[in-house]
């Protein structure tokens, strides 16, 4: 919302500078985003007099002029057709700096020297386009600084961000009302000098019927005849341009001027196009079509407030007029509409139409029903003055059920309780009255322009902002000893995260909206799709952390960052059943590529393989002390290489998958290196965490170890052998570890050697060699028998 400093001064006599006004407004909740001077600074431009003008010897369109200042006479080349001897002009001397940053230098133009420049208004930043140089209307003293002269007429655009609750501040007058309260000055009324010169009565020319009083509680009309369409006067154009309206013609400019100043949207119909001398306001029916001013045929949402004549709709109420009744250059008679529409109805229609206009924005934030008459009279008066028009007598004003002013009990105690203050009733009353709220007995009467005030909490805010938030007390924070529940989920997520960090992995944080194709690589279900995505790159919610993580890998590999060991914790998203919120569990992802360890002078390059990712997985799970998890061979993850994929299972829950990404997946992310990863569903995993663990006594007696190498069929899995030995090795066997795996020379075809280290230990005594040897020999025999194995020599 733009206003100008001088325009505000038309309604309030204040002394504050533009910056001071901006600060007051900002501190009162009307955030000033920018103050823009209308005259931009420049220097070195002085008043000069054109003494003579001669044709340039080498260029038809240029003139060689002599310009006199108080000190000297200069030769200047000028290209403007309107330059003439005797003119007083703004003369930029050599060294001058213009508002656009241009510096004036001595120049030679087509062989003739030029010492300076005669300026146009455009060049001085005073208008967008000039057709020639600016000749002053009056004589000025030669050599006077032009910027200083203009500065007396300087004005500033104050650009304010208006929050959606303050529809009343979408006008110069609305802002002036705030300025009056904030500076402690009275607010002046707008003077309206309406003559109504036509003998006819408006009521005889037009009938207005409201059939949709819910959507349009009030509708008023006036008839204006003999309008001469033409440009509006310069002062009006200048003000409109300053606050962001493009001047069009006097009639449009007048309605925009009233809109800008009073905040009330008006609409002008070409009276000759209104059939049957009547206006009917009614709600649209499904399937209705209408062509708006902008030549677009629009399908009307049901229950849109429509303005119709005897035969057809002529405007979408409060949003946009129709092409069929638009004011044109041939228009002489006008039906001027001023109405009040219900905010919710306009908001709904505007949203469904996808059409937001200056009018709809005001109506949906709440216009003032009391402004209906003021605005129509003001515009009619301006049309008399500026468009040579005559206005018919009286208004047709249909307002079947006038809106009541809201009343709020003035609860001083509650206001103080909210703010932590101890204001007395007088102070509060004074503050509320300064913004034109009336206080009667213990009631606050809210004027109709303040739609946002209905509760005592609202009054508390008004008092607070008028007192200034900075002047409200701040209570020194002291920890309140509430007994709050434990942040359980947070604690668990941090627990997982800290364990990952302790493994030396780099935490990354990736986006959760991804391409559909990326998502589909990691789920067989339909990914959770966004109806109105920002772009195809962010069309669905990630079903797996791998989407973003592989993108991060790709980004780094492309920049030659090679050794990547990443983890991430975040939500992933299940598919949508059409009714309930989708499953959105926290997930933990790890991806690794490049070297196993940072290479160095004594660390050779060694690429990661399956056993690195499995090692991360096992160490992580080991740190959680989950004793009931199983690692199973897995081939259902399409994005991982078959035969290089395992899964983690606890009871019936599949917690996650671990393995090597397929080439197709890597290609899809433009990765040419081998990448390994695992992902665990933390919502499932955390069910199995045990927090009340008790300690196990550390063994007091030494252990004995025995090594053995079995030759088994190469199809026999290591885990099968270990499991068998563990199960059948006797109660003194504490652990079985694989210390060597070998296949190759000296080993028969189709066999491989598995070296096992068995550890025996008793909690009660030191075991004798003899008894350990005995158990050891027994299990060796059993194993050989079970797997048809032999011992490796």
């Amino acid at each position: 919302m733009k206003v100008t400093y001088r325009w505000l001064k038309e309604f309030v006599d204040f002394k504050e500078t533009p910056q001071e006004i901006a600060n007051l407004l900002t501190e009162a909740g009307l955030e000033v985003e920018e103050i823009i001077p209308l005259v931009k600074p420049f220097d070195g431009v002085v008043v000069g007099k054109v003494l003579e003008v001669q044709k340039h010897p080498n260029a038809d369109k240029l003139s060689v002029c002599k310009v006199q200042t108080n000190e000297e006479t200069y030769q200047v080349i000028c290209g403007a057709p309107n330059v003439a001897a005797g003119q007083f002009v703004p003369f930029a001397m050599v060294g001058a700096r213009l508002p656009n940053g241009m510096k004036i230098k001595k120049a030679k133009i087509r062989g003739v020297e030029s010492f300076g420049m005669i300026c146009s208004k455009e060049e001085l930043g005073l208008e967008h386009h000039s057709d020639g140089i600016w000749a002053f209307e009056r004589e000025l003293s030669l050599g006077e600084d032009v910027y200083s002269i203009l500065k007396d007429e300087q004005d500033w655009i104050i650009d304010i961000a208006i929050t959606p609750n303050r529809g009343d501040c979408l006008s110069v007058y609305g802002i002036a009302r705030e300025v009056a309260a904030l500076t402690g000055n009275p607010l002046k009324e707008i003077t309206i000098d309406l003559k109504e010169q036509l003998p006819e009565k408006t009521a005889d020319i037009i009938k207005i019927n409201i059939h949709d009083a819910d959507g349009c509680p009030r509708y008023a009309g006036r008839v204006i005849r003999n309008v001469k369409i033409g440009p509006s006067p310069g002062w009006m154009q200048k003000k409109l341009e300053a606050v962001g309206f493009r001047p069009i013609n006097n009639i449009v400019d007048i309605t925009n001027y009233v809109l800008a100043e009073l905040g009330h949207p008006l609409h002008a119909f070409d009276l000759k196009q209104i059939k049957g001398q009547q206006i009917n306001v009614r709600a649209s029916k499904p399937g209705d079509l209408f062509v708006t001013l902008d030549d677009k045929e629009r399908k009307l949402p049901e229950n849109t407030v429509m303005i119709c004549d005897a035969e057809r709709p002529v405007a979408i109420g409060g949003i946009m007029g129709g092409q069929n009744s638009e004011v044109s250059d041939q228009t002489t008679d006008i039906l001027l509409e001023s109405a009040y529409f219900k905010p919710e109805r306009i908001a709904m229609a505007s949203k469904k139409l996808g059409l937001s206009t200056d009018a709809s924005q005001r109506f949906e934030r709440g216009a003032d029903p009391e402004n209906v008459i003021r605005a129509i009279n003001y515009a009619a008066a301006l049309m008399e003055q500026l468009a040579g028009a005559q206005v018919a007598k009286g208004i047709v004003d249909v307002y079947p059920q006038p809106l009541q002013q809201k009343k709020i009990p003035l609860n001083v105690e509650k206001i103080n309780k909210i703010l932590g203050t101890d204001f007395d009733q007088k102070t509060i009353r004074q503050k509320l009255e300064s913004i034109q709220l009336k206080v009667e007995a213990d009631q606050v009467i809210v004027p109709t322009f303040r739609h946002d005030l209905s509760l005592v909490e609202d009054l508390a805010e008004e008092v607070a902002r008028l007192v200034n938030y900075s002047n409200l007390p701040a209570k020194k924070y002291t920890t309140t000893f509430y007994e709050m529940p434990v942040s359980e989920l947070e604690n668990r997520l941090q627990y997982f995260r800290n364990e990952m960090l302790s493994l030396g992995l780099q935490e990354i944080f990736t986006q959760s909206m991804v391409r559909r194709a990326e998502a589909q690589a990691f789920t067989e279900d339909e990914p959770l799709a966004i109806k109105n995505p920002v772009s195809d790159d962010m069309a669905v919610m990630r079903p797996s952390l791998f989407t973003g993580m592989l993108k991060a890998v790709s980004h780094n590999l492309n920049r030659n960052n090679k050794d990547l060991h990443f983890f991430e914790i975040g939500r992933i998203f299940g598919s949508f059943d059409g009714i309930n919120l989708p499953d959105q569990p926290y997930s933990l992802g790890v991806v690794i590529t490049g070297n196993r360890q940072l290479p160095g002078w004594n660390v050779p390059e060694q690429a990661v393989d399956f056993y690195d990712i499995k090692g991360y997985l096992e160490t992580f799970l080991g740190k959680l002390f989950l004793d009931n998890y199983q690692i199973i061979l897995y081939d259902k993850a399409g994005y991982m290489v078959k035969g290089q994929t395992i899964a983690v299972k606890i009871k019936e829950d599949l917690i996650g998958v671990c393995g090597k990404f397929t080439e197709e997946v890597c290609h899809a992310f433009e990765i040419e290196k081998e990448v390994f990863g695992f992902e665990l569903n933390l919502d499932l995993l955390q069910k199995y965490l045990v927090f009340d663990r008790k300690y196990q006594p550390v063994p007091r007696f030494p252990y004995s170890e025995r090594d053995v190498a079995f030759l088994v069929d190469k199809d026999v899995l290591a885990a099968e052998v270990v499991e068998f030995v563990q199960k059948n090795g006797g109660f003194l066997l504490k652990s079985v570890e694989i210390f060597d795996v070998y296949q190759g020379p000296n080993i028969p075809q189709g066999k491989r050697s598995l070296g096992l280290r068995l550890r025996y230990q008793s909690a009660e005594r030191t075991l004798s060699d003899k008894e350990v040897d005995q158990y050891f020999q027994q299990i060796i025999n059993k194993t050989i028998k079970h797997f048809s194995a032999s011992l490796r020599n």
Partner: protein
Amino acid sequence: MNEIIEKIRSEFFEAIKNVKSAADLEPIRIKFLGRKGLVSTSFDRIAELPKEQRPLFGKALNELKRELENAYQNLQGDFKKQQAKQVQLDLTLPGRKPFAGRKHPLLKVADEIKQIFVSLGFTIEDGPEVETDFYNFEALNIPKTHPARDMQDTLYITEDILLRTHTSPVQIRVMQRQKPPIQMIAPGRVYRRDTPDASHSPFFHQVEGLVVDKGITFADLKGVIQAFAHRMFGPDIKVRFRPSFFPFTEPSAEYDFTCVFCQGQGCRVCKNTGWMEISGAGMVHPNVFKAAGVDPEKYTGYAFGMGIDRIAMIKYAIDDIRIFFENDVRFLNQF
């Protein structure tokens, strides 16, 4: 008997004369001082002697043993010193480095924010990112036609299910399941339909705060934000509250901190205002209490929000939000 002792002694000292390394020394140790060496076996011969000579011989043998051991140890020590000199390490060569586990900078800042509030007695709550219209809007006093819906361009799954545009829905969820007093923060990811550029990302991160109890006032809100500002950015940071509008708070405020780049003097970053806009706050609107089943006659409360990304950008002087989500290790390694 003395001859035996003398013989062992002279043989030993003769033997060590020619020793040149620790390796040469080892067979000598075994021959004389080992478990089955000359000294040990000599003890076995005590039994051969007449009773009265036995203690004397035992004593002499023990003395011999000590003497030889001393000589052996001195020599061994010399060899060790020599060896240390020969195998000198170049200590300037770099060590073998394991990968270092590092937190993502944004989450590091989130940790800091959380720690501050936990130290102020807040709990940490969480809520879904895919939310219902009810929790994200309706319950927060933002009905369907409210113009405030335009303040946040929303990404929808269906008409009633959406990506939360703020962390405020967690307020409602917590109030529904927990009676006041409530003193919580809820950090998390939120989504808006913004085109990505240096200062906008269609997803970013907020921390929501909510305190509800009897007798909570706007003065408490000012106090807690001040306490946060001081702990996050230092004791000289000032806080400014300005009136604003959020449908779910009344009165509503926006709060600013002293610009950390110019200490409030005015610079390019703060557009010469001396202030950095942080976020919004206010007293919980009675309609929000009603929607969440809290009695607004009995309780008052305040709520606040803050952007984690924004605070991280201020803290590390980062001027492009997108760099957080590229995860370039040359960036990540700086934190």
